[in-house]
């Protein structure tokens, strides 16, 4: 009956074993692919806080992913141009240090989620989906038409940002960093789900009227979860931008929102390790189908359709069998 923890362990160990093996076989491309899985999984863990725990179907999480990515570029670009970040009201230099960039990304993502969430959570259901989508698209168009940060072309960062004590240019060390952040985020999501806050949030998802009758405002619970969710996804965005050493408005496009949501659902909504399994499956499908046909998205679409229609519960739901948590 309790098969899920075992499956989780296998998934997380596999994600570690694959790049280690690839490194031993001198295949740095596969290490980079595994890093991409870890980072997208992190974005999915963020979305899953809103989607799985809070029942908020946000189709605008690319906004936070992109905010994180742009935060990286905004902080790191002045350094490579030998310019200060700002001169007024105080003179501030940019930074190439990942911890500082992450802090900036998390704060910016949380503030963005606070603004978008405060407005969007005035509604629910299908309105919420459309409104989060629309706000995400607003940032996308803003990034395209605002010339200071590259407009449509985006910005390239020539050297990957540094982390104290690590050589981030080495693919395996950068993977280890992304993997460690992913583990921390999974721990956070797990603790969150089991905390009094998480239980109240589950209540707000399943029976908002009862939670309100107990004296807790569902709105505040959901907004808090949405802000946390946005912050984690923004952190993933900063890492993703560092992986590619490039940001562009496409990080903000609604296709990105769709992809993050797809990988959460592929793995299993509301499952702690769903995003990890989903990201691995998604990248694997992309890679395998991409090798077969240049029109791989056509087949990806068909496979996704099949999964939604016939294999509910995602990968972990199929393997572990029993429906949990998600209603």
């Amino acid at each position, binding site marked *: 009956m309790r098969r899920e923890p075992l499956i989780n362990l296998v998934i997380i160990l596999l994600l570690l074993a694959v790049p280690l093996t690839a490194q031993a076989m001198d295949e740095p491309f596969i290490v980079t692919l595994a890093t991409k899985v870890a980072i997208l999984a992190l974005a999915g863990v963020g979305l899953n806080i809103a989607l799985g725990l809070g029942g908020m179907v946000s189709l605008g999480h690319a906004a936070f992913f992109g905010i994180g990515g742009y935060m990286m570029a905004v902080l790191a670009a002045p350094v490579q141009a030998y310019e200060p970040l700002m001169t007024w009201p105080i003179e501030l230099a940019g930074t190439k240090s990942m911890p500082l960039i992450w802090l900036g990304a998390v704060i910016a993502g949380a503030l963005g989620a606070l603004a978008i969430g405060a407005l969007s959570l005035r509604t629910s259901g*299908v309105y919420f989906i459309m409104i989060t989508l629309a706000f995400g698209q607003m940032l996308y168009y803003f990034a395209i038409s605002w010339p200071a940060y590259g407009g449509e072309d985006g910005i390239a960062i020539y050297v990957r940002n540094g982390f104290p004590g690590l050589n981030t240019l080495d693919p395996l060390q950068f993977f280890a960093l992304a993997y460690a952040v992913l583990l921390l985020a999974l721990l956070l999501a797990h603790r969150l789900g089991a905390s009094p806050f998480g239980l109240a949030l589950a209540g707000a998802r399943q029976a908002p009227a009862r939670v309100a009758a107990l004296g807790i405002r569902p709105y505040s619970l959901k907004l808090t979860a949405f802000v946390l969710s946005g912050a984690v996804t923004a952190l993933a965005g900063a890492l993703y931008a560092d992986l590619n050493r490039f940001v562009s408005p496409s990080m903000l496009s609604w296709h990105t929102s769709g992809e993050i949501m797809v990988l959460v659902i592929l793995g299993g909504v509301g499952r702690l390790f769903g995003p990890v399994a989903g990201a691995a499956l998604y990248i694997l499908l992309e890679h395998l189908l991409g090798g077969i046909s240049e029109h791989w*998205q056509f087949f990806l*679409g*068909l496979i996704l359709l099949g999964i939604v229609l016939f294999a509910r519960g995602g990968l972990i739901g199929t393997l572990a069998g029993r429906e949990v948590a998600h209603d």
Partner: protein
Amino acid sequence: MSAMLLIEQALNGLQYGVMLFLMAAGLTLVFGVMGLINLAHGSLYMVGAFACAGVAAATGSFWLGLAASLAAAAAAGAIVELTVIRRLYARDHLDQVLATFALILVFSEGTRWLFGSFPLYLDIPAALAGPITLPGGIEYPLYRLVLIGIGLAVAAGLFWLIGATRLGVRIRAGEADREMIAALGVDISRLYTIVFALGAALAGLAGALVGALQSVQVGMGEPVLILAFVVIVIGGIGSIKGALVGAILVGLTDTLGRFLLPAAFGTFLPPSEATSIGAALASMLIYILMAAILVIRPGGLYGRV
């Protein structure tokens, strides 16, 4: 800035608005009657445009192309409804979002497979090419004026269909209580297919009509889809009247914002800065409008919330 230019831009906004209405009307009908959120509505818009461009190129007649766009989009809508969409009515919105997102991938990549990656071009029919002089001496493209006319005529037709025909009565009854009308002997699954195909045909019509103004390419439906969502949120889900008012509001706000904001900033900023700030703000204006309406009326202007 002359008044003539302003009127011309207002007409452009109105034309944009009525085309958005054709998209939003189908979406809002499908949501109102079946409770389904359909992200693939933009793909039907694309199907209409490609069908029109393909048939017009083969036969040389824009009008045959237009008929083909209606037929192709309605057929694509009916097929998708029968094979995929009807399995989703009982599911939650999350499954609907994912399945229709998958449909977008299939439609977009399938179209790219069939037609290649290069955009197609669709010419405005010769009879409608060129400008016309409006009262007051304003020169305005005849084709855009015809689009406004077609959009308003379709809106009137839709109000008549919903308000005064047997099918409309059933659609409204389906919105109110689907179990009851099924119990009264209305074939509800056939009604759903018809509503979905109707919405698809409207989207295809919009795609073909707008395709003659822009290029016909894969992915052309998605920006329009998202604007149609904004329209529905502003107008209120399920309301055709809300869709019309919202669409025209969005069309005018967007077009006039892009025209007026850079000029407005130009009164106190140097021209290059004014253009970039004005353009960036103008691209966000309709979303700001949406946010403002949400604050005042969370259910939209004509919503039932």
